[in-house]
């Protein structure tokens, strides 16, 4: 689980670090400037990553979240 939660670091790397290297207009990707296309890609990937984290997170299988102690 800890490994899967570490996936949440990827959007930060993609958006903050990736932009340093992909700060270019050309080549256009699907007609879009490279940096814009890269960021839109990361929006989709972030959603997918959060879905994986959600499905594997045991906290979401607890029927009553309010009964769960802080951890």
């Amino acid at each position: 689980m800890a490994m899967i939660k570490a996936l949440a670091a990827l959007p930060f790397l993609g958006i903050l670090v990736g932009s340093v290297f992909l700060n270019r207009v050309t080549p256009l990707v699907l007609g879009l400037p490279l940096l814009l296309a890269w960021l839109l890609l990361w929006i989709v990937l972030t959603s997918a990553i959060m879905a994986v984290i959600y499905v594997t997170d045991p906290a979401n299988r607890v029927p009553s979240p309010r009964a769960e102690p802080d951890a």
Partner: protein
Amino acid sequence: MSAALAIIALTALGALLLGLRASRGRDMSLEQWTVGGRGFGAVFVFLLMAGEIYTTFTFLGGSGYAYGHGGPTYYILGYGCLAYVISYWLLPPIWRYAQQHRLISQPDYFAAKYDSRALGVLVAVVGIVALIPYLVLQFKGLGIIVATASYGAIPSAVAVWIGAAVVTAYVMVSGVRGSAWTAVVKDALILAVAVFLGVYLPIHLYGGFGAMFSAIQDAKPGFLALPAKGESVAWFDSTVLLTALGFYMWPHSFGSIFTARTDKVFRQNAIVMPLYQLILAFVFMVGFAAVLKVPGLTGPSIDLALFRVSIQTFDPWFVGVIGAAGVLTALVPGSMIMMTAATLLANNIYRPLHSGGVTDQSVTRLARWMVPVVALVAVFFTLRGGQTIVALLLMGYSFVTQLFPALVMSLRRHNPLSSAGVFAGIVVGIATIAATSLTHTTVASLFPGLPEALRDLNIGIVALVLNVVTLTVVSGISRRVPSARSA
């Protein structure tokens, strides 16, 4: 009166009438509506959430910034995305604590966690100070819409007064109860208008997205990426980070955490919400389409880009429809901001300062009379300021982000921070923002000798660092928080 202005005036009147109906208690409150929304169908929920992202900021500010600044606008895509990742872990514990302690506002949370009434008042002050630029940008947007749709007949200063009067009337009439139907109409209209404009304009004016971006790249090489200096990669990263941390620190966003039914909702939202950011790309397209077609707008007038290109392309009646969508995007969030600021003043500043018995009724009455006061202050700054919509929101973000360090530490079981430390840290952070905004200081002007990557950092980061240093040092020398007993 132009057809455009007539459509916009009718829309504003319709919203006021719906608000009047809501005040008779027939419609649900916005809070009830949001919670009830979880029982609605997927399309309805999508409209609701997409509508929350679309305020005047994205509609006029986002397109204007794309027009005037190009690549740096992409920061708006980045920060929302990262804020939702953070929300997966940040919001559930805040929600659980608020449930246990029956909290209803953001200052309540800080006052309870740090056992300090003074800190609650300070947090309320920070919230109000940050909400003012947010409200100013809604008024500015309204002014632009009314002035543009009148085709020059109404000067922009008069248009700002009209816009402010409409929002104030809306809030005074409907109170905290917004009309569910105003919000539904707004969400559907703005989504349709934004997607239509974002697809139609590039195809109609240039023949396609690729053709449009190639033409812009030829005319202004590098405009669609981040520049080497100024709003560079360093600016982009620091601004994305700063605004992502501040995303849920706004008093109205923080308050909305308390309305959820279970903490699972936040974790589910973290999956779906990033996708709504995709819709912002359509708004950027409108701004980019305007770059070569309505050149010459500079400074704060870049916010006019969407309307200028629309007027040039469409008949007045359709400009009216776009304007009506714009008015609603300013009206609904604008009324929430105004109500939040007025309630903070009455409930979280006036009430704690009068320890001798203040009734709920007198606080409610005071909140109602604070609404026009808040509106006047915002009108004053709207007419005075020469800032773009994006610059205004970034200033608000710099303020609210100062609450983030104290919030994160409050989630730890053994919080090493004292209330005095947190108080001092926030004061130093806010003072830094205020001083640098008033004197137009940037990191580059403070430390001209630094390398470019450091010179371009968002000045809000500097305030945040000073904040953290202060709260660490003051907490170290003052007593510990009573509730944070060591193990």
